[in-house]
């Protein structure tokens, strides 16, 4: 019966009511139940059974086809408009580029889209951050994929200036349907739109409001107070089930620290490989946060060069979940904490904010309890939920704990897998610079690095497979077009590292790899001995020239730094980069050349999906019941 209950939970949409459309479906299903459905059998047969897939191709869920079916579903999926009203706002200045509002105390403005905000007079909060005239210009990203942050005046009168921006992030919408229909523009073509009520949004997407309620506000004030009391020596973790608002609350903690402590900065430990805050999925990392976080994860990838969110250290799991190797996960975290302690030693402490995964039962809880000791948590925020196995020890192990009521479930227009795709795309399109910039070119037309793997002039030492062992004769087939992590062992200083290097063999077509022991799986390389540099997409393998074509967001100088080291590529269990194969097709939909190529079977791994009939439409699933129930 356990299985049944689980499925029921998942099927019951957050609203908990049967929508008219679902009812229609049920009725239809009843009618059809009389007969066997061969088309259904065929569709089921072609679906992968791996917890990621709910329908053939995750992106189909959001692709806006011309079919009437899609339109219907789109409308039905909308939750009722949120009854959230503001008084008619006092707009004192309104031109082609900007808009200035005059807000009375506690008056609220909700803005969708992307904009720069400046306080000309007074004070206001957004996302837990206190905006004042001296806080300068702040960029806010409020796409419709998530709850929209509101600006609340804390003094009256407060003058708020919103400015339209020309963002490069938005250009990604050309490249994938997951980035489409999430931005907005008002009648003046400005990049933002002032909402009087949320139902006003022209694209009719489900929107909700992110407001800092009193309970959260109280905890944020206490935490900021404790940071000051303890001279920054505070380590805070927020625990709670999936989609219970952990990341949002962590952002608010960072923002509260940025606004209310003298140093205005903190360290952010990203422990959720499924939905990290600052980087691509699949790693754990430590980031120095020097600016408020006013957007969702895909709007602010961290990098070594970023001024606002500087990547200090990262260790790759090469997987979006730690379920297959919890020990390696803990080792990765332990290694980062060694670096953290060395960093804060003898200097003023910096508060540490820990972003935990939402896996709070079973193995997830066991691992997290172990980690609490590794991390030395002082303060724990427990979001309401049913996870006594973790909540009990967490309470005992920390000096102070706070209880936060679980915010109402918010409808999201993107599944976890789609959000990971967005983060991955944002990462691969970001360009190393001090301010965030993204390139709008399809990834297939970015210049790759040609990396030799020949025995005489090797650019990489070996290819390592984490997780299940790979038969050497199939390594090339698996590697081609997939995501790998670039890691290295320092060979210049540490001579013992030389001995650590395992034996390298070569596949029939010459790829160097580290063979798996007879146990069938390889123990991952010790994170203490290796450095994770970045992820890369294996764009192609050229057996003739013995080169791998790699695409990575690393800068030229960082690549030059790799030359002194023994470089390895780690292949693991990253999501299949379906998005990468399709970007150029989506970016140029007016021309049929790409589509024709696909139809003729000339595009590797890509096929045209036959237009599914009514039956296929009916059976298409919107919420993947399996996806990520086990992982973060």
């Amino acid at each position, binding site marked *: 019966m356990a299985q049944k209950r689980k499925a029921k939970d998942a099927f019951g949409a957050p609203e908990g009511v049967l929508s008219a459309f679902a009812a229609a479906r049920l009725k239809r299903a009843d009618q059809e139940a009389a007969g066997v459905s061969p088309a259904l059998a065929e569709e089921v047969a072609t679906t992968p059974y791996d917890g990621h897939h709910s329908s053939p191709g995750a992106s189909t869920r959001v692709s806006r086809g011309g079919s009437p079916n899609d339109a219907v579903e789109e409308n039905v999926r909308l939750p009722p408009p949120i009854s959230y009203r503001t008084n008619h706002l006092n707009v004192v200045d309104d031109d082609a580029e900007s808009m200035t509002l005059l807000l009375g105390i506690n008056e609220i403005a909700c803005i969708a889209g992307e904009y720069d905000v400046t306080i000309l007079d007074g004070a206001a909060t957004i996302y837990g951050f206190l905006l004042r005239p001296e806080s300068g210009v702040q960029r806010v990203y409020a796409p419709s994929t998530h709850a929209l942050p509101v600006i609340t005046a804390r003094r009256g009168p407060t003058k708020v200036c919103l400015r339209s921006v020309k963002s490069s992030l938005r250009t990604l919408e050309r490249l994938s349907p997951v980035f489409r229909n999430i931005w907005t523009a008002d009648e003046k073509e400005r990049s933002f739109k002032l909402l009087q009520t949320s139902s006003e949004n022209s694209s009719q997407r489900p929107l909700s409001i992110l407001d800092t309620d009193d309970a959260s506000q109280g905890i944020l004030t206490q935490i900021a107070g404790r940071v000051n009391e303890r001279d920054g020596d505070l380590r805070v973790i927020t625990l709670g089930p999936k989609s219970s608002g952990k990341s949002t609350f962590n952002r608010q903690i960072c923002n509260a620290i940025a606004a209310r402590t003298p140093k205005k900065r903190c360290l952010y430990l990203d422990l959720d490989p499924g939905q990290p805050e600052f980087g691509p999925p699949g790693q754990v990392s430590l980031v120095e946060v020097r600016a408020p976080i006013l957007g969702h994860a895909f709007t602010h990838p961290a990098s070594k060069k970023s001024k606002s969110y500087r990547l200090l250290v990262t260790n790759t799991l090469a997987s979006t979940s730690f379920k297959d190797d919890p020990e390696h996960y803990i080792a990765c975290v332990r290694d980062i904490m060694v670096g953290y302690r060395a960093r804060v030693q003898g200097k003023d402490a910096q508060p540490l904010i820990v972003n935990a995964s939402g896996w709070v039962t079973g193995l997830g809880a066991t691992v997290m309890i172990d980690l609490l000791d590794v991390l030395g948590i002082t303060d724990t925020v427990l979001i309401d939920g049913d996870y006594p196995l973790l909540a009990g020890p967490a309470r005992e192990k920390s000096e102070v704990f706070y209880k936060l009521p679980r915010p109402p479930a918010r409808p999201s227009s993107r599944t976890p897998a789609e959000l990971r795709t967005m983060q991955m795309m944002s990462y691969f399109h970001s360009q190393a610079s001090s301010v965030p910039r993204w390139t709008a070119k399809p990834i*297939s037309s970015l210049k*790759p690095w040609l990396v030799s793997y020949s025995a005489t002039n090797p*650019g990489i030492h070996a290819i390592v497979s984490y997780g299940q062992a790979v038969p050497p004769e199939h390594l090339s087939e698996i590697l081609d077009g997939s995501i790998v992590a670039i890691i290295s062992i320092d060979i210049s200083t540490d001579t013992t590292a030389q001995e650590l290097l395992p034996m390298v063999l070569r596949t029939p077509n010459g790829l160097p790899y580290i063979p798996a022991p007879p146990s069938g799986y390889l123990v991952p390389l010790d994170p203490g001995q290796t450095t994770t540099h970045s992820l890369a997409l294996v764009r192609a393998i050229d057996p003739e020239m013995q080169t791998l074509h790699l695409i990575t967001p690393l800068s030229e100088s960082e690549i030059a730094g790799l030359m002194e080291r023994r470089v390895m590529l780690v292949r693991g269990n990253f999501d299949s980069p379906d998005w990468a194969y399709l970007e150029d097709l989506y970016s140029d*939909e007016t021309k049929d050349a790409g589509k024709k190529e696909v139809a003729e079977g000339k595009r590797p791994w*890509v096929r045209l999906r036959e237009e599914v009939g009514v039956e296929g439409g009916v059976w298409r699933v919107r919420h993947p019941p399996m996806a990520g129930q086990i992982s973060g």
Partner: protein
Amino acid sequence: MAKYTITPWRHHSNLLIVRSQLYSPDPTLRQAAVSRTMAWKLRGNLPHAVESTALLVDAFLHHALPSNSPFSIRAVYSAAFTRFVTGFCDIGRNRERALEPSSMLEIARQIGMPAEFVALRHEATHEDLPSVQRLVAACEQALEWLWDVYWSKIDEGAVVMAKQAEAEDFGRVTVEARRIFRDFRGARRAALKKKNGPQSQEARAVVMEATANLESLCSDRAEATQAAIAVLVADELLYPSERELAAPLGGAFMIWDDLLIDMTDSPSTLRTMTKTIFARMITPVSAHKTSDIGSDALCIWLAHIASSETWQAMRGAVSFDVRTDLMRECCVQPGHWSYLLGTALLKSSRDDMFIEAWSDLLRASAVNIDGADTNIETDDVSNGISSLMETDAEAGSFAEASDLATSWQRALFAPQAAIGVVR
């Protein structure tokens, strides 16, 4: 909007091969297919039917090994079978998206899966492991069921047959094209000998006839055109068989120019032609690579197509920059002949922007050419190409500087191929 789906296999033909192997009587082939399917599983997006088939086949292979214990044999059959049934029912149930999900049995009924499958799954999970005999029978039945539901539907029989028919058709195209081209060459030569020049009525008529024949042969199919162009190159029709290295090709141009220009009515045909010629040029057939008559002639041909006045109108008419395209190929696929062609293109250019954009790249690309004989007498390459570029000193220093990083090099150009395709 086109809707795409991603498969773990590169091309559909891979899946067809795996199917024939999975259902083959030869255990080596079946083993190979299982291993390959498991590799696809690691890529992601593997349909459950394919995975289930491989697991079931693997259970049979496991059974055939004499050293395995009775428990392990029953366990492997049970695991493969259970995962097969559970997966189908789970996916079906997810698809249903009802508040009260149907029972497994109900889902099985809807997708036409025998009820015994669900019963056996239940037994294997909650009761004693079923006996080997029953498991073998059930797994055999499961493989048959999978064949009906999935494997029998993937061939797109019509498509495959059409492709085969096409392949035969191309054989015919090759033969026909060869005849057309040879007839054309003879007739055109005869017409030109009458001294009325290439634009005489008779000479023109020969071209028109050949063009018409080719058009009806290829009838706008890219592959057919490609086959025809391949004949031109493979049969060495574009230059006299007896010729000196670097001898001018004026006569050949006079014979072929009009026909080639008429043939290349689209950018893609022009690109196919230059690409085919280029590919042959950089793979000399004679032992002395740098004195291959064919490569030499084709190099002159390409320079002629890319920069001569005869072809100017043609180049203007299509939206495809032959010269830049060839230049890029020269840099990306460096070699003796690429370098010669690149130099010729630079020399014949009156466009400063073009020269500025490409001369350094060409030189850099030539650094690693075997024997470093970039010191080639380009004088011979006709068309008034006089002297050679200043090479070795600078090229040498470039090589030294980049020595450290040669194992990681930034590609010179933005690729034009899709992900997974080298070029």
